[in-house]
């Protein structure tokens, strides 16, 4: 009994001493901490931006955690963090509570099919219009590949994301004024899960984020991006074709891609102090360089960046 008490006492005092020493050592260096939480989609980018910013301003420390866009939003609104990372559009109910979104990066959802899809040549020649995609994903009016593009009468095996996410919101929004919950299809968890489901099913149709649909510069093995027939002329024009990362990047950058989405830093009210300076850094040329280096995002155009900076 006595030894036990002694051991506990020793451990406790050791812990106390270590904490005190650590506090003492850390305090003079870091006067400011910027705390950030939120979407997984923005976590890699924010981490890299934080690292670079810390190098320029060693007195600023970062505390970044990921737990979903809603968590970031809740934390930012309650004041638990300085900045929330939100990978979807900000809801009007959230804006009503004081959420101030700053547009920080772009991503997009790309419809994908299996490389062995029986209608593949037709798909690549004609593409699918937004109206038809709506019939497939929302209205359930179009249920065979024949109805979608002509060709074989095989059914379309539709897949969607089960977890609430930016890709699904963007894809639903591209098809009209819809939300993720309106998308039909088997719900598969996560970007990789959805990709795998389509990769295994020759009749499958799903959608994926930039960072999963491309591996390096090329489309990931086993899937093909379905061109969206944006101008509804019944054929895939050069500007609608996406068969490598560069074309996707260009279309999103120039705002020509219909299922692009915006990702945000959210603060409660306008950002101020350290958070403000960090967000300016994220919107600077250096911030854009880091964004391109991390990959999986498309930067804002210079005009868009200027607009955002003006709003700060």
């Amino acid at each position, binding site marked *: 009994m006595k030894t036990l008490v002694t051991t506990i006492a020793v451990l406790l005092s050791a812990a106390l001493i270590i904490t005190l020493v650590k506090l003492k050592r850390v305090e003079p260096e870091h006067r400011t901490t910027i705390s950030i939480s939120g979407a997984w989609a923005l976590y890699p980018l924010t981490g890299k931006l934080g690292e670079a910013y810390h190098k320029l301003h060693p007195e600023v420390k970062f505390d970044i955690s990921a*737990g*979903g*866009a*809603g*968590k970031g*939003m*809740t934390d930012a*609104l309650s004041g638990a963090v300085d900045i929330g990372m939100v990978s*979807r559009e900000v*809801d009007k*109910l*959230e804006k009503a509570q004081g959420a101030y979104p700053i547009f920080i990066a772009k991503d997009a959802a790309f419809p994908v099919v299996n490389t062995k899809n029986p209608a593949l040549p037709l798909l690549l020649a004609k593409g699918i219009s937004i109206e038809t995609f709506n019939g497939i994903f929302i209205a359930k009016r179009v249920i065979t590949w024949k109805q979608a593009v002509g060709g074989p009468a095989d*059914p379309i*095996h539709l*897949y969607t994301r*089960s*977890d*609430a*996410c930016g890709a699904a919101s963007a894809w639903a929004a591209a098809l009209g004024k819809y*939300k993720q*919950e*309106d998308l039909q*299809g*088997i*719900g*598969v*968890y996560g970007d990789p*899960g959805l990709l*795998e*489901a389509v990769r*295994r*099913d020759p009749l*499958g149709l799903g959608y994926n984020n930039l960072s999963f649909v491309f591996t390096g510069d090329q489309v990931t093995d086993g899937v093909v991006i379905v061109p969206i027939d944006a101008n509804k002329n019944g054929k895939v024009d050069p500007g609608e074709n996406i068969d490598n990362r560069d074309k996707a990047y260009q279309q999103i950058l120039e705002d020509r891609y219909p299922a692009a989405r915006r990702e945000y830093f959210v603060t409660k009210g306008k950002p101020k102090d350290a958070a403000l300076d960090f967000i300016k850094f994220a919107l600077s040329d250096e911030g854009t360089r880091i964004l391109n280096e991390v990959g999986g995002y498309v930067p804002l155009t210079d005009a868009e960046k200027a607009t955002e900076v003006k709003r700060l």
Partner: protein
Amino acid sequence: MRIRRQMTDWIARHAMLAATLFSGLLVAAIALALVLRARPLFAAKGIGQVLFGNTWSPSTGLFGLKPFIIGTLWVTGLATVLAVPVCLLAAIFLAEYAGPKLRGIVKPLIDLLAGIPSVIYGVWGVLVVVPFIADVLGPYAAAHWQRIPLLGTEFTTGFSILAGAVVLAVMIAPVIIAIADEVLRAVPREVREVSYSLGATRMETILRVVVRRALPGLVAAVVLGISRALGETMAVLMVVGNVPIAPESVFDPAYPLPALIANNYGEMMSIPLYDSALLGAALLLLAIVLAFNLLARFTLAYAIRRVAQ
């Protein structure tokens, strides 16, 4: 000296009482928190519409949880049907037939199953169970079982109630086997010997004497397994298809309550009524598990009385 001893005793007794009360009150505290957070939804929509509504469409203000309740019951029910017979037979074998050597190998393996994180079961489900159902079992069912209710299908992607139930069954098996095995081994040797001395065979002894005597414990083992199945989240949501429509066949997808919460909570907790609906779903799940446990307790009490007679 005497006072000091009494003091020690008093302190020890009350410290333990406090610990007991604390753990007991936790359930109440959790339930209370959920009720408070879920109340805005029930106040706005009415309990009836939430519990019995068929449509889940938060953006249009429809928060029907019925498809999720049905999904939970389907997946858990099928998992129980798949797991319980196999587990009980395995437990009887381990406790009554297996020699020390075989037991020494098999028992640790089964216990090991209990320690595997659920996401690994989920990955296994996606990589093995789902493709098996999509490529082998589904097409077979489409060809031969078309007219059998609950088993008929035209086509399945593999993401289905059956996939969820298989993964769940494997997950709850070690729990059921381990407890059932302990319960059976706790039956005194004399009981068996009396039975043998009356000329009963081994089979008769096991079924009529050992299992009968161990029945309350065996029920408890099954109940614990099912309780775990009701709340299991990650592994199930990865394979079950997550479509909020009441299923008609085991090859259809379903959407259990825990999956609804896990899929949406992190993203949607900042939208007031959505948050409230997800916590309402959590409250409902808690209520289902509690109700099930109560039911099981009554069954158990009944079983004990019958055995005693």
